[in-house]
């Protein structure tokens, strides 16, 4: 099976979708001729023409607002916001418009759009290229929120998102674009070409939305992770020797609660981890759900490991980023609790 980077897998998902369905339109800043600053759309304009893949003005509200109009017409736009940090001008369009169009018009108009954006830190991007705003979207009724952690899933989840009848926020952990980064920033990263999850089948396949996957089976403690934190969790489990069951959520909304509850009821312990800031982060929702559904199986408080409640710093990136050491401490404390 061919191996692809996450960038190539994402590009392939759009390529496959554009070939299958001429209603799929791809645009965003630097997306057309150049192929995107991360090259996720490279070659699509040459292959499908300027009507199907084109450059947009630097206007996120314009990109998402026009995509909503296109979706109302009957197309299926898959647009790129260059960094998740830049999505806020489009927030009104996403929250007040895309998410509610089906509901408020009782299905008279719908909004099958995908808003792709690179998310997360680890690249010395400072506060404007490192944020993880997923919780700002999981709080919104009517959206779906997807965070892939590897090339295979990225392709299958993106195809599912493009084919979905409702708006999907597709957050691509940019630190994973070229390899499974585990938080050990001082070590070289294994490229996807040497990782089994870099195996990406040609052609069309889907990974369903709303389904988590167990990345590492274990009996001692459940770690709920997504995106880059999946590899941080693997490193933490290995380094502490704790037999953690690591769940890669893949889709945050709708959430695969069944898989979470089954695992926590089995292990009796749970640690939630994400890069985003702690307070009101998605971990708060996960922690509350585990408490509601698994209370009588819990042998320790649910722990949360997250970014500190500061803006994403530049020089202090590795003090901020929840790496394997921080997660490892939480695993040990949860086992000792």
């Amino acid at each position, binding site marked *: 099976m061919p191996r692809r980077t996450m960038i190539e897998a994402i590009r392939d998902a759009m390529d496959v979708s554009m070939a299958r369905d001429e209603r799929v339109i791809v645009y965003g800043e630097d997306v057309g001729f150049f192929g995107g600053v991360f090259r996720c759309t490279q070659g699509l304009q040459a292959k499908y023409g300027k009507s199907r893949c084109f450059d947009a003005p630097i206007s996120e509200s314009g990109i998402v607002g026009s995509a909503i109009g296109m979706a*109302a017409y009957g197309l299926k736009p898959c647009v790129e916001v260059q960094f998740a940090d830049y999505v806020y001008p489009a927030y009104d*369009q996403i929250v007040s418009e895309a998410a509610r169009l089906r509901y408020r018009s009782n299905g008279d108009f719908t909004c099958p759009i995908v808003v792709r954006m690179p998310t997360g830190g680890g690249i010395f991007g400072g506060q404007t290229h490192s944020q993880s705003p997923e919780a700002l979207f999981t709080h919104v009724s009517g959206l779906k929120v997807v965070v892939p952690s590897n090339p295979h899933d990225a392709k299958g989840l993106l195809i599912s998102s493009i084919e979905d009848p409702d708006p999907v926020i597709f957050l691509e952990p940019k630190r994973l674009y070229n390899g499974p980064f585990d938080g050990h920033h001082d070590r070289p990263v294994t490229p996807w070409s040497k990782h089994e999850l870099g195996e990406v089948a040609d052609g069309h396949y889907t990974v369903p939305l709303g389904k988590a996957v167990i990345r590492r089976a274990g009996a001692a403690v459940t770690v709920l992770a997504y995106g880059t934190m999946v590899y941080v969790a693997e490193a933490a489990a290995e380094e502490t020797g704790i037999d953690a069951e690591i769940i890669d959520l893949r889709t945050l909304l709708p959430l695969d609660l069944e898989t979470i509850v089954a695992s926590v009821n089995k292990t009796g312990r749970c640690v939630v981890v994400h890069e985003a800031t702690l307070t009101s982060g998605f971990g708060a929702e996960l922690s509350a759900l585990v408490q509601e559904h698994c209370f009588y199986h819990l042998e320790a408080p649910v722990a949360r490991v997250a970014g500190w409640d500061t803006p994403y710093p530049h020089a202090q990136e590795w003090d901020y980023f929840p790496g394997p050491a921080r997660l490892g401490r939480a695993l040990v404390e949860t086992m000792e609790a």
Partner: protein
Amino acid sequence: MADAGMLRFHVPEPEVRPGGTPDFSDVTIPKAGSVPRPEIDVDPRTIRDMAFSIIRVLNRAGEAVGPWAGLLSDDELLEGLRHMMTLRTFDARMQMAQRQGKTSFYMQHLGEEAVSCAFRKALAPGDMNFPTYRQAGLLIADGYPMVTMMNQIYSNEADPLKGRQLPIMYSSKEHGFFSISGNLATQYIQAVGWAMASAISNDSKIAAAWIGDGSTAESDFHSALVFASTYKAPVVLNVVNNQWAISTFQGIARGGSGTFAARGLGFGIPSLRVDGNDYLAVHAVAKWATTRARSNLGPTLIEYVTYRVGAHSSSDDPSAYRPKAESDAWPLGDPIVRLKNHLIQRGVWSDERHTQAEAEIQEMVVSAQREAERHGTLHAGGKPSTRDMFEGVYAEMPPHLRRQRQQAGV
């Protein structure tokens, strides 16, 4: 540099406040028929002055004059008059229904009826409007059933939107009327996107974007103009300048640009101003713009100069911020009276027929209201189910909503 020194902060003020004498002497009204009608493929740079004038067809004597006249037949004009009268009567009944507690909220069009009623007649089937909350004339003039509008206003058991939306936030794809958001300006860029999609699909349909004077200050307005200009989208960009954004006079949003139409000039978009209380002028300019859009000539920006005679909404009291008699002083008159006088002048209408038409329309609206009220009003009779509240958030209900619906006991 005569005034170098302490900086002063500038906040524009309207000419007159409550208690003062209304004064529109600063509003320059060109003579009807005096503004030329350019070819649709005109170079926008050569008609920049049109953003600062006002296209008018009906003169004080009720005659249709000048190059923008002559597009509509007697029957079409009589139909237009009937649409405007229907909208006004509909508004009066629904405003009263709100006061009677039959619904929570209402917004009327008093004085602005010509804008949406006449514009609708310049569109073709399949075209799409992205309206604000004050363009119900688009529905009335397209034959959308009044009973359905009332069912929506009452949020009753027959409400096509299942009680989910604030009154008057209609939606009808079939009638080219995009779901009203209630958030301001968001729909403007969506209209441009819809038009881009039509061009991408090599279709023949066009879009119409709608916004009020106040909301042109929103960034989505500017996004829309950038996208429309860049991609030459087949869209008509309508700005309804009714002078007031709730209590805020139009100068607060307009700033130093002179007119709202002038906003289009920097984007190279042909930008016209039109007498919004002149049914014939509105229709003629709309036709010019829709023809341009359909001919791959791109967007047109139209500013409709009109006046919001009524309150902003049923929750607003304009006497707190503008003179009570200001609407009487408005120099462009009343759109219904002006079209009525024109039809009388044409010899196809009379005061008697007008009075008779008023009675007929009143009866039609009252009868629609009776029918709607049989399906319930906001606090009485049939209403949408609690189950409907949980439906339609997604195409398929996800597990967490199913759990919550169970919790709610429905």
